[in-house]
């Protein structure tokens, strides 16, 4: 009996010991508190080292209703307290040069950019989100300030994007132009200027119009910022009284006289070195620190966006290096440098690219701390952003929790652990890049134009980008192998930089779904028509312009199609893992055309 009792006691102890030894979440209370700050925007942060935009602090950071308050206010004793021991807090980043539409503001926030200063978008975009920046509600979007429609000449840079915008070609129109922008809600006026009124494919407003626009902006208390791309234009923009330059230049080294003028007139500059890098043919994806938390947030399509470059044959090879030196000189002269990316132009994506711009700025002589200022306090003071760009009492509680010290290495901004927007914690969204493999017949066209993607083959031409070419697709009961095929006809006409016309298959109607061709060896199809050269367009997620694969059709009759086989392995410059669509188009010089397409198979 007593042995049994001892046995029971021992067994009970063993059970208790096992239960006590089972693992529990480390610092469980801390975790729960971080989660609580997803739901409440009033709390006190302890133990963190934090940057207010000017100085680094160690005392408590207190947030009430999404705003920073003075930590000495002892009325806040009952606040939820979170400890961020060993963490570093910086103000939410400000990208001072973007173009905003679609998911831009969501993407921006997911990488820690809490405010975007847009330099040209449609006024509808601005009016739909402008009010959000005054609110302190939980949101998954960055705040937006915008120039709205930019000021450019008819045929000037900004008119090439396929939608109509108001333009200006005379100084007398300046005031009414500026008033119209302000009425649309523009926060500042952005002007495109080149010292030659005709350059490359573009025109530019003249100096008098530039000056008149800047004067009009000043009259209505708006900043006037100027897009320039070379030294001479920069110089003239500064002479005309610009408040800021929204690009740098790499054609020539900056001289003392321009620096002196910029300094005297307190002109700031947003060098957008990310763009100069892309213009220099550099793929902008190598800055991402492989093991960083940021690298888990970036999606396949964003990577593709970063790897795009801009074809800039007009530019000198050392433009990026010269631009960096110019930034270094301006910076050491005390000229205000702002971080901006020009996303989503090729080579830059919203949010992620600002982390690259910071690196490029440190490569141009800014210290890591000064680079942080360029994306926070400098933007605050240059654009008069009042309650953002710093973490002083009254500021919006937009800040980032970093695991590593950004003062040691600026790439430590990529050690992002948590984002606070309007005082609400937002966890990083780890992206899973899913692409579906595909194998076998894509379309047979035996009785209609239907394809395996559930979206029928359709006509495509540069008309959708305001070109003049036309295309039409119909089902034909003859054509290739007598069992039905797709007949594509139309006409290529000039009027677009790279004309196209033909037929297209997409994998989803908005081209958001991607297919993985990595395991396929070839793309085969039957093709009939006039002998000559044709092209395949491969649309890849995140890349605006499709990749082209040329193929040649020898002399065949229309009723006797030729089997064409494209060996995918021959085109390793194409990201076959995320294809969104395929198009068959005729060459730009073709004129009128008819061709037959049939039996599309992926092997």
């Amino acid at each position: 009996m007593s042995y049994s009792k001892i046995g029971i006691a021992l067994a009970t102890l063993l059970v208790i010991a096992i239960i006590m030894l089972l693992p529990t979440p480390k610092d469980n209370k801390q975790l729960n508190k971080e989660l609580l700050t997803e739901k409440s925007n009033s709390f006190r942060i302890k133990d963190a080292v934090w940057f207010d935009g000017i100085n680094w602090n160690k005392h408590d950071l207190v947030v009430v209703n999404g705003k920073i308050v003075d930590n000495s206010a002892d009325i806040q004793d009952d606040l939820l307290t979170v400890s961020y021991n060993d963490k570093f807090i910086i103000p939410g980043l400000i990208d001072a040069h973007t173009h905003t539409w679609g998911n831009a503001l969501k993407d921006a926030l997911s990488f820690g950019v809490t405010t975007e200063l847009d330099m040209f978008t449609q006024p509808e975009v601005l009016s739909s989100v402008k009010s959000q920046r005054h609110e302190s509600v939980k949101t998954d979007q960055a705040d937006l300030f915008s120039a709205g429609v930019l000021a450019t000449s008819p045929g000037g840079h900004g008119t090439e994007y396929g939608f109509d915008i108001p333009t200006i070609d005379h100084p007398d129109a300046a005031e009414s132009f500026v008033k119209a922008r302000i009425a649309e809600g523009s926060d500042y006026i952005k002007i495109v200027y080149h010292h030659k009124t005709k350059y490359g494919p573009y025109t530019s407003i003249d100096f008098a119009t530039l000056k008149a626009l800047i004067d009009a902006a000043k009259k209505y208390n708006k900043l006037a910022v100027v897009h320039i791309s070379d030294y001479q234009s920069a110089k003239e923009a500064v002479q005309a009284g610009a408040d800021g330059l929204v690009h740098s230049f790499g054609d020539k080294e900056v001289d003392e006289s321009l620096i002196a003028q910029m300094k005297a007139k307190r002109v700031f500059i947003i060098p957008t070195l990310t763009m100069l890098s892309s213009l220099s043919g550099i793929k902008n994806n190598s800055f991402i620190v492989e093991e960083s938390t940021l690298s888990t947030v970036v999606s396949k399509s964003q990577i593709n966006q970063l790897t795009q470059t801009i074809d800039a044959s007009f530019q000198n090879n050392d433009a990026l290096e010269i631009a960096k030196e110019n930034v270094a000189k301006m910076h050491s002269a005390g000229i205000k440098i702002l971080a901006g990316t020009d996303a989503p132009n090729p080579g830059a994506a919203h949010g992620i690219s600002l982390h690259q711009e910071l690196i490029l700025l440190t490569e141009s002589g800014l210290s890591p701390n000064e680079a942080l200022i360029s994306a926070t306090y400098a933007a605050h003071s240059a654009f008069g952003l009042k309650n953002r760009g710093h973490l002083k009492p009254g500021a919006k509680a937009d800040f980032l929790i970093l695991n590593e010290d950004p003062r040691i290495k600026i790439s430590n901004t990529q050690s992002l652990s948590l984002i606070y927007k309007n005082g609400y914690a937002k966890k990083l969204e780890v992206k899973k890049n899913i692409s579906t493999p595909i194998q076998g017949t894509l379309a047979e066209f035996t009785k209609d134009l239907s394809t395996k993607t559930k979206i029928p083959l359709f006509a495509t031409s540069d008309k959708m980008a305001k070109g003049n070419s036309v295309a039409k697709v119909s089902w034909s009961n003859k054509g290739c192998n007598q069992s039905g095929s797709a007949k594509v006809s139309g006409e290529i006409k000039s009027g677009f930089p790279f004309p196209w016309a033909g037929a297209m298959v997409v994998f989803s109607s908005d081209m958001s779904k991607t297919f993985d061709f990595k395991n396929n060896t070839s793309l085969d199809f039957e093709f009939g028509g006039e002998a000559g050269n044709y092209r395949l367009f491969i649309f890849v997620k995140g890349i605006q312009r499709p990749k082209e694969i040329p193929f040649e059709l020898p002399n065949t009759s229309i009723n006797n199609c030729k089997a064409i086989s494209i060996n995918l392995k021959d085109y390793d410059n194409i990201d076959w893992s995320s294809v969104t669509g395929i198009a068959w188009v005729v060459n730009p010089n073709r004129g009128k055309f008819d061709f037959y397409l049939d039996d599309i198979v992926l092997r």
Partner: protein
Amino acid sequence: MISQINSMRQSVSLSNILWLETRNEILKTFRMPAFVIPSLIFPVMFYVFFGVLFNQSGADGNMSHYLIATYGVFGIMGPALFSFGVGVAVEKDQGWFAVKRCSPMPISAYFISRILTSMIFGLIIVLELFIIGAVFGDVVLTRSQWILTLVSLLLGTLPFCVLGLWIGLTIKGQAAPAIVNLIYLPMAFLSGLWIPLGVFPEFMQNVAWIFPAFHLSQMVLSIQGLSLGFDLIWHLLSLVTMSAIAWLLAARAFNKHA
């Protein structure tokens, strides 16, 4: 003399009867390797296969958490169903059950000892799962989640004891192992104990509602926030109702033998 009287008095107290009956039941059970080995090893073996080795990435990375709850249910079901379903059926056929009923011992002690034995087996199985889940499956739960999971699993043996009792009193001893297995294994599978119910077609997810194992597993899963999200009260009500029905059926079968 006095101490002898005391010990005699002690020996006829109800608690002592219960103690002796339970101790003997445990000893008897542990001397049946055919019962001990499958009960203690199968749930853990399955858990190692599906929860630790294979499916690390399933259920949003919560597979090892999810399966610790469901294999816990699977684990406690076994001893309860077999101890009552098979054990009672066999002892009933052997006449041992009749002897127990005729003896001065209250027959409740016979049942309670079996319940406690089932719970002790359940306890061992659940602790095995906890240890393996913690060491190999990276399962991390708060202390209260661990304890709550254990306690609700142990209490969860009761409905299966009642169900087993009804089966045991109703069927012949020879048929019992086969029949209990026919109920035990399909119920475990269809209740989502082996594979999360979410991967089943909707029709099968609806079928799960008729099984007590489904309701218990949902209650245990809700401790970690991994249940399908129905209000707990529905699962509790279902379990209580099913137990009550089984209890009534068992009582009828019991009276038939009287």
